[in-house]
């Protein structure tokens, strides 16, 4: 087996996921929030690929491809929303968008 062993990949994946989570929770700009979400998704991808290698089956890699497709569509929608907000001159701050308050 070439390269570092699987636990290393998982460790990196966990770190990336933590960074992404903190980003989603702490940043207020929707653009950064989206970015952090992408990081989280890719952390997941990395874990999938790592496990795929660990078990020696390719299912995880197939899933990773599917996740990329989902991530791409999600970014499309998310960016579309952000562009629409910008064109309406709304504040680009997720804390300002709280009309759904109970």
């Amino acid at each position, binding site marked *: 087996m070439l390269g570092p062993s699987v636990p290393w990949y998982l460790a990196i994946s966990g770190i990336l996921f933590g960074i992404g989570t903190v980003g*989603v929770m702490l940043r207020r700009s929707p653009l950064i929030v989206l970015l952090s979400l992408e990081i989280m998704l890719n952390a997941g991808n990395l874990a999938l690929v790592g496990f795929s290698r660990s078990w020696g089956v390719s299912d995880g890699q197939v899933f990773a491809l599917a996740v990329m497709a989902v991530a791409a569509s999600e970014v499309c929608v998310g960016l579309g929303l952000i562009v629409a907000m910008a064109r309406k001159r709304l504040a680009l701050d997720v*804390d300002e968008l709280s009309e*759904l*308050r*109970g």
Partner: protein
Amino acid sequence: MTALAVGGWICLLAPLAGALLITLAGTSISRRTAAYLGTLSVFVAFVGALTAFFSMWSHSPADRSELSTAFTWLSGGSFHVGMSILVDPLSIVMMLVVSGVGGLIVGYSIGYMDGDDEERRYFAYMAIFVFAMLMLVEAGNLLLLLVGWGLVGLASYLLIGFWHHRPEAVAAAKKAFVMNAIGDATMALGFFLLIFKTGSLDFSVVFGGAASLDSTTVNLVALGLLGGAVAKSAQLPLQTWLPDAMEGPTPVSALIHAATMVTAGVYLIVRTHSIFEAAHSIQDLAAGLGAATLVVAGLIALVQTDIKRVIAYSTMSQIGYMFVGAGLGAYASGMFHLVTHAFFKALLFLVAGVIIHHLAGEQDIRRMGGLKASMPRIWLAFLVGSLALVGIPPFAGFWSKDPILAAALARGDAFGWILLVTGLVGAFLTGVYTFRLFFRVFYGEPSELVTEHAHEHGDNDRVVSLSLGVPVAILTVLSTVGGLLEIAGVWDPFGSWIAQVAEPLVEPSTAQEWATSAVAVTVGAAGMWVAWAIYRTGRLSVPALPAVQRLLEHKFYFDELYDAIAYRPAQLLAMWLRNEVETPFVEGSLDEIGRVGQEAGAGVARAQTGLLRTYALAIAVSALVLAVIFVAVR
């Protein structure tokens, strides 16, 4: 199916079809067409009854009863009830009376109700009533009989309250319905007991098994049936609804509250005579209640001032005679009096209706008088009806009332003598109150009201005067000759006809018949003489007995009594429940439940901050917690 059954089904279903047609056609037919349709449907029923009658006539006496089942209506385990009709010599008599007299009265309504805003509704109700009454008399088992019993109560309720803008009419309708519901309930309880003990409500099973039931059961069943009969027929102690029912239109009073529905109790006793014969004390109770009612109602009728109420009390009194007959086991005499009473009482009501119509709705006899000059034909019809009611030969009532009194004499024991004496007292009272009414309305100085309306005759259109006149004329003829169906000791077709279904328990001898007839006619004539002396010539004056008068005017305080023992306690209980239970507990707990829901909602709403990052935090924390639990539990 034989012609007998076909006739029976046509008779039953024609009025229902009429009612449905009038209802479904709605305003697409004129009021007059609805009236014709209603009348036609009842006459079709009469033709059906006639067909069945002639078909029955041609059968041999052993073969005159036919049970025709359309389908099984209810079945549960071994208990089956068929949608079946029984056409036999007893039910055919009732069918002919109901559809025949009913047809005449519905025809009379064409003129009487002419121009009423809700004429269509009236005729639909009338057709429904005739259907329900035919259902009652043609029912092939006790359950269907109860269905008819309830439906006539409903029709009666609807028609008493027909003028629903009058509060008194609505109150009277409610009163009639509640009083009748008491009877319906006791009947239903009796039926439950029958199902429990015999497993069936079929006439053949129940009547065949009545003799073998233990005496408590059969007494309770008979008591339940008697309760129904007493309520429907307005006998003591459930009689107070009938006078109030006069709030309905006059043809309704004639059809439902004189000729047909109120006599259903008598029919019930005759129909279920096997049960009553097995419960002898209850049968005596029926006769006793009838006797008490006939005197009480006769006394009250002496002081009533409303023309329809006088006739209503007279109806109660005459049904009392029928109960005495049925209670004595003189079934044919009771049924015969039912038939002739249907003729002359319908006649009296229709005549009263013409008078009320003529006087623009006035019903108070103190404002009438001297009508003979302006209404000679009505005078004649009323005279015939009155003579038939008092039982003066050769009019119908004479032939039918006296056999009942003779049966009381033939019974022989002390109870028989009591019944005979009360019957004779009743005959005297009948003479007095009937002719008090007659002289008050037709003789004396014409009142202002009468003079005012004296020359309005003949401006009605032809259909109205025909529709009012023809039924009155036919009923006058029937009241005159209707009694010749049966002449005691000489000519006995009616008695032997009914005896095919219900064998009489007492058979008065011819000598007893003639003796009671002579006494009864004398007593009735004496009553007429008293009325003549007081109200025509003024030779006698009304005895001044203020206490008695007050007692009679308050109808023996029955209404006040029922108010005190049923209405007031119920009202007090309801008030107490409202103040002590409803408001604090029921309403309070509802408020409490509502408040808890509101507060819970407010709490949950606080969690909905609308801040995206809080949600993300919540998700992350929950995921973390779940992961920790997952690891820990493993």
